[in-house]
């Protein structure tokens, strides 16, 4: 090998040395360097034969990923058109330049006779959709008539004819005013303009930009290269609205241009542009670009050095770093001009000049020596900006004013919660703020509503009630649990039979699975202990011990007469007995079975001074105690005899915990008041058989230890210190991981191991966290309690929290969306439907599997492959009326009839057409209608299994099919835009209806009164029975592929790529609940027949099944508690 390696090395050296030479000298080089080694020489010659001199081979720019996405598009190299080539009425004269979208030519127009600049769009980019957009935009651009803007004469497409008479169809182009001049920066330098002259030019550019903005056109790509200055000194902006016409937002720009081209544009992009959210880009993004241009013209450099950075790095700099102040570049620019540029370049678009005219105005004021409008940032603002960047506030930016008001009001609460929410922060929250405000406004209208004792007031009152419920729902989204509960339960009790509050509560419990809540008297409540295996927990109070059923939260018995308050409790795992340390210094064993027989540990106090901690071993045989006498003692729980006593620490041990195998005990002192901050104390692990010190872990003496526990698997010891440090010690490897407890303000009060894992649950102040070696994370299902937590215990898959004010809750640890789901498909799920009797659910995965699932238990009954070999998916599943047979509309364009009883494919009905995107039954049950990827539609007769191909073929794939309830009309939707109405009898289209966006799914209400169309933009358009447009619902943030009505027509559901599902009241068209999936984009939604369940197949590998009766069980578990609270509140003076 080494000899071989040496040879390779040598060949490489010679190759590299020789390849640098001109090729005619290669041979002499080889001879010289190979020293007669002919093997080496021939190896080098062979390699040189493949030398890539021009660096063409393996060009990363040739790697196009879009064909894997779009399947079709490929960039053709842009050929240069020869002079004389005609495109429509334009004749090409010469090439002006080449850009990202195509080349620009000087061309002659016939009528009117003039010379124009003709932008010829790259052929690879010309598609139907692009052409349509051009035609639409042309009209808008034509309206821009300003001396500072190069006029766009025409945008469109025309056949291209080469001089030798060859013609090609439809070449898209933009014809615009031909501007002869220099780019803005070059002009300034060429003419050697002074600062004032440069500023005057910028002000004129501002005027032109403003003109366009007033007409609703944003440039999006302003840069000196796009602003030419004619010799006369008039600036003209090129390519206005072109970026828009081609829909070139930042994300697409990244995609379509090479990285080199992007870098030319990047310095002028605003922070919101580099974020890549096209929705955030507005006229103020152009103002930012103007600021950059101004900066560049004045200083000769860019505000941010992006050329030397990688793109992600450059984007980060633009988003986060302040540019060098103008005044720091040159003292010449101190004062107002610095202020103007800074304001134009503000990262926050709300703080920028709100229009180009404002910027131009201030420039002119500055030139005229008048005071400018921009103010320097106030000290307070700067301070606040530095103090904290509330993530959510930034997100809510779009909601501008509302968010600002809300910001002030919520800042204090939010600061505490920020860290917890940050991970989940999303637009839903921003939206919630806006809606909350709307709710507030509606509430304020209450008085008005009351005053008008007529139908209008009824309507307002109804809106008000809705607003109240909605407010509660949104408080839940925001994590304001007490507020959410107050609002929702108030509405629930007020309108016993109304569906909105009930649904809002279902949503609440879906997010926060509180199995039950009870309130015990907070007076004298001291401690809690948990016996998970026995399903019980104990509360210790001044008056005695209460035993509670952990599954429902009701009191089972009370043990009183202990003679003193119960300070500390420990209970055996089987709940057969408990030990209580009493205020009088005694420790008592209480038999919890039978007659509550009590026995004292010793006739006298077991420790000198007070008892500070007790713990029971997992096997229940040993009791450990510690006291103010600084000893730790071990007792036999059967005989109550003292087995050992020793000084575990120089301090008093405040924390005791047994290992799960009952062989080891951890002891630790609590926080102390020592002044010496460096003083150490230790958490110590003792072997119980001989009291050997196994390990010790240093902690600061001042902080001490507030809680400690072993993990269930006995691999990890968790120690929480008073200095808010959480240390996880691996008992096998001695590895330590340490986390700062940054949540809440108080120390960790309780640690409880999670079953079956090394994880721990912690109670910190008012929240519950899950701790593992890799870090701390909040337990989302618990949410924020406004009460201080005293103790927590894990029971099954739930945690019981005991709050100091007597609130006790049992909360499911696993989020609801993971509790009810169809088992792992390891890929996306596609079609899904319930059987007509509701007992069965069928789900098709992207992995070629169809599963037949018990709808109640979600246990899989059958799994079978769609095709024997290969992989196939089925986007649509439809049961055949009155049978156990269902049809699967498959990726190969065939329908497969499958049996839900035997779990297999019964027959295949091929079509030869591409994939079935949509499939629906006709209302009479006679046909299955399929919509294919190629735009064809087929009617399959269920009786004969023969199909009829409809004569009219749509341009693109058919994504949605629906029928009016009488079966007379069919509605189709798809990528072709709009929806088509068909006469089912004649099988012909009778009408086509415009929708507000590109539609995906359609659904017709069972009574035929409503037609819904979901779109790519997350909108649902609502039409009435005459197909007249009624309203559009902003339902989701992204495409809505899933849309269905419940059978009774009272509800409909939408499922979106934003990974959520919404349930709507079909009558009021209002959201009843917004439910999360396991983080997967939703593909199909389906109600079961009685709408007690909703299945949402999604991209999370699971199909989520929302089980509403189960959510109602949570409702029941909390209702009594909430009823008492509501009653108490309304009884209290000053209640609402």
């Amino acid at each position, binding site marked *: 090998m080494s000899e071989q390696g040496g040879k390779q090395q040598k060949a490489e050296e010679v190759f590299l040395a020789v390849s640098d030479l001109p090729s005619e000298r290669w041979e002499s080089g080889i001879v010289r360097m190979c020293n007669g080694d002919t093997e080496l020489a021939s190896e080098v010659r062979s390699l040189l034969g493949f030398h890539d001199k021009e660096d*063409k081979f393996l060009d990363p720019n040739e790697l196009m990923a879009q064909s894997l996405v779009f399947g079709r598009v490929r960039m053709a190299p842009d050929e240069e058109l020869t002079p004389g080539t005609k495109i429509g009425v334009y004749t090409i004269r010469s090439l002006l330049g080449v850009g990202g979208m195509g080349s620009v030519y000087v061309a002659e127009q016939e009528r009117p006779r003039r010379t124009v600049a003709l932008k010829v769009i790259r052929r690879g*980019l010309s598609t139907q*959709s692009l052409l349509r957009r051009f035609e639409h935009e042309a009209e808008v651009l034509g309206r821009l008539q300003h001396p500072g803007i190069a006029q766009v004469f025409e945008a469109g497409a025309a056949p291209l004819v080469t001089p030798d008479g060859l013609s090609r169809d439809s070449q898209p182009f933009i014809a615009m005013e031909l501007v002869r001049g220099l780019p803005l920066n070059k002009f300034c330098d060429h003419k050697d303009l002074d600062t004032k002259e440069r500023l005057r030019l910028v002000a004129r550019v501002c005027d032109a930009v403003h003109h366009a903005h007033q007409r609703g056109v944003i440039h999006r790509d302003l840069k000196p290269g796009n602003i030419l200055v004619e010799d006369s000194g008039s600036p003209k902006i090129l390519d206005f609205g072109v970026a828009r016409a081609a829909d070139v937002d930042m994300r*697409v720009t990244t995609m379509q241009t090479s990285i080199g081209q992007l870098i030319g544009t990047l310095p002028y992009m605003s922070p919101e542009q580099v974020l890549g959210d096209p929705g955030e880009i507005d006229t103020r993004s152009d103002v930012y670009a103007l600021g950059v241009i101004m900066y560049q013209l004045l200083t000769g450099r860019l505000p941010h050095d992006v050329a030397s950075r990688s793109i992600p790095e450059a984007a*980060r700099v633009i988003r986060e770093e302040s540019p060098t102040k103008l005044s720091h570049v040159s003292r010449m620019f101190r004062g107002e001009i610095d202020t103007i540029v800074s304001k134009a370049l503000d990262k926050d678009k709300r703080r920028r000049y709100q229009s180009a005219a404002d910027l131009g105005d201030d420039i002119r004021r500055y030139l005229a020596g008048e005071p400018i409008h921009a103010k320097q940032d106030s000290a307070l603002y700067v301070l606040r900006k530095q103090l904290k960047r509330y993530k959510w506030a930034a997100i809510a930016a779009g909601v501008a004013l509302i968010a600002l008001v809300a910001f002030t009001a919520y800042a204090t609460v939010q600061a505490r919660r920020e860290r917890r929410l940050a991970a989940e922060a999303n637009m839903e929250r921003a939206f919630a703020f806006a809606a909350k405000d709307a709710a507030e406004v509606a509430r304020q209208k209450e008085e008005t509503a009351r005053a008008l004792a007529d139908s209008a007031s009824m309507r307002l009152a109804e809106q008000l009630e809705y607003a109240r419920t909605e407010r509660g729902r949104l408080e839940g989204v925001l994590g304001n649990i007490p507020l959410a509960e107050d609002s929702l339960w108030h509405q629930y009790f007020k309108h016993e039979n109304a569906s909105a509050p009930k649904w809002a509560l279902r949503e609440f419990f879906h997010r926060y699975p509180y199995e039950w809540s009870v309130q015990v008297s907070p007076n004298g409540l001291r401690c809690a202990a948990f016996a998970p295996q026995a399903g019980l927990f104990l509360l210790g109070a001044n008056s005695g011990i209460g035993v509670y059923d952990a599954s429902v939260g009701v009191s089972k018995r009370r043990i009183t007469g202990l003679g003193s308050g119960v300070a500390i409790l420990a209970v055996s795992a089987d709940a057969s007995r408990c030990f209580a340390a009493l205020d009088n210094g005694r420790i008592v064993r209480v038999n919890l079975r039978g007659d509550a027989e009590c026995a004292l540990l010793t006739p006298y106090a077991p420790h000198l001074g007070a008892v500070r901690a007790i713990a029971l071993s997992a096997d229940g045989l040993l009791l450990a105690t510690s006291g103010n006498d600084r000893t730790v003692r071990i007792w036999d729980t059967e005989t109550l005899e003292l087995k050992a006593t020793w000084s575990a620490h120089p301090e008093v041990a405040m924390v005791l915990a047994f290992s799960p195998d009952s062989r080891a005990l951890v002891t630790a002192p609590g926080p102390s008041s020592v002044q010496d901050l460096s003083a150490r104390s230790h958490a110590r692990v003792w072997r119980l058989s001989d009291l050997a010190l196994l390990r010790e872990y240093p902690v600061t003496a001042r902080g001490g230890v507030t809680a400690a526990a072993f993990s269930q698997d006995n691999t990890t010891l968790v120690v929480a210190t008073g200095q808010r440090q959480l240390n996880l010690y691996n008992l096998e490897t001695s590895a330590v991981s340490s986390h700062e407890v940054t949540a809440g303000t108080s120390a960790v009060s309780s640690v409880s191991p999670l079953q079956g894992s090394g994880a721990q649950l912690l109670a910190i102040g008012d929240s519950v966290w899950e701790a593992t070696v890799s870090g701390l994370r909040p337990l989302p299902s618990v949410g924020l309690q406004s009460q201080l937590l005293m103790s927590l215990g894990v029971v099954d898959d739930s945690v019981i929290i005991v709050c100091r004010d007597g609130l006790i809750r049992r909360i499911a640890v696993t989020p609801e969306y993971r509790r009810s789901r169809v088992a792992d498909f390891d890929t996306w799920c596609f079609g899904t439907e319930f059987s007509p009797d509701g007992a069965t659910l069928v789900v098709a995965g992207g992995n070629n599997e169809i599963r037949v699932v018990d709808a109640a238990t979600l246990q899989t009954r059958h799994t079978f492959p769609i095709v024997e070999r290969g992989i196939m998916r089925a986007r649509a599943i439809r049961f055949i009326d009155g049978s156990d047979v269902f049809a699967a509309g498959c990726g*190969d364009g065939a329908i497969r009839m499958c049996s839900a009883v035997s779990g297999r494919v019964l027959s295949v009905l091929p079509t030869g057409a591409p994939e079935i995107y949509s499939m629906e039954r006709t209302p009479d049950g006679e046909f299955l209608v399929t919509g294919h990827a190629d735009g064809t539609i087929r009617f399959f007769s269920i009786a004969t299994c023969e199909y009829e191909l409809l004569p009219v073929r749509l341009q693109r794939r058919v994504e949605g099919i629906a029928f009016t309830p009488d079966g007379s009309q069919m509605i189709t939707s798809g990528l072709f835009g709009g929806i088509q109405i068909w006469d089912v009898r004649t099988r012909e289209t009778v009408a086509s209806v415009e929708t507000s966006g590109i539609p995906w799914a359609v659904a017709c209400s069972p009574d035929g009164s409503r037609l819904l169309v979901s779109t790519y933009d997350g909108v649902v358009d609502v039409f009435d029975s005459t197909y007249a447009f009624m309203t559009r619902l902003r339902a989701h943030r992204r495409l809505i592929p899933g849309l269905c009505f419940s059978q009774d027509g009272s509800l409909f559901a939408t499922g979106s790529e934003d990974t959520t599902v919404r349930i709507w009241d079909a009558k009021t068209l209002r959201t009843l609940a917004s439910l999360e999936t396991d983080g997967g984009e939703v593909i199909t939604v389906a109600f079961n027949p009685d709408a007690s369940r909703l299945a949402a197949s999604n991209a999370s590998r699971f199909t989520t099944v929302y089980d509403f009766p189960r959510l109602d069980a949570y409702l029941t578990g909390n209702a009594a508690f909430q009823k008492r609270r509501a009653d108490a509140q309304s009884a209290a003076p000053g209640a609402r």
Partner: protein
Amino acid sequence: MADAPGIQTNFPTSPHQVTQILGAVKDGDPRASEQLLPLVYDELRRLARSYMGKEKEGQTLQATALVHEAYMRLLGGIEVSWDSRGHFFSAAAMAMRRILVERARHRKRIKHGGEMQRVDADPAHVADPAEPDKDAGTDLVALDEALNKLGEYDRRKCDVVMLKYFAGLTNDEVAAALGVSSATIRNEWTFAKAWLARELKKAGVAPAALVNARSEGSA
């Protein structure tokens, strides 16, 4: 699936999680690198899917730009060392290579009509069957095999090609990622290309980019 918190790929991944994983990779945790690849792979596919969802037909999508976009999305603005960046881009290059090669294989199958026409499980791989194979560039399936051989011959050369070709890094960036000088990278790249080109020729697929150059040379 391992339910270790912080690494659940079915949850939207936060930049901090990614930096955490990158940190662990840097510290030599082998499990961490196993987590990184699927994460990047998922993100690339998710991105591809989201572009499919938007159906921005007519826009081209450069593979390497997709990698950079994935970087921006997964790491947000978080500053990571070049070391970690290198790990990221290595994983991204590997993921991109797999995606593209898988697709090229898939295409070949369709083209040769070996199986009944069918649709792949993953929407990111849905090829339009009507579309002829228009990949005039490099035969990725053959390149994949050649790269495997190059890796056996010299691991680092293979890394250089991966980072440059599949992740679109510049020489300087590759140099920073691999901790060697730019000059070395330039040399490795020049040599590796000749080596690979020869390998492709042996496999009967001459790299298109070189065909002209060589015929001129020999004439």
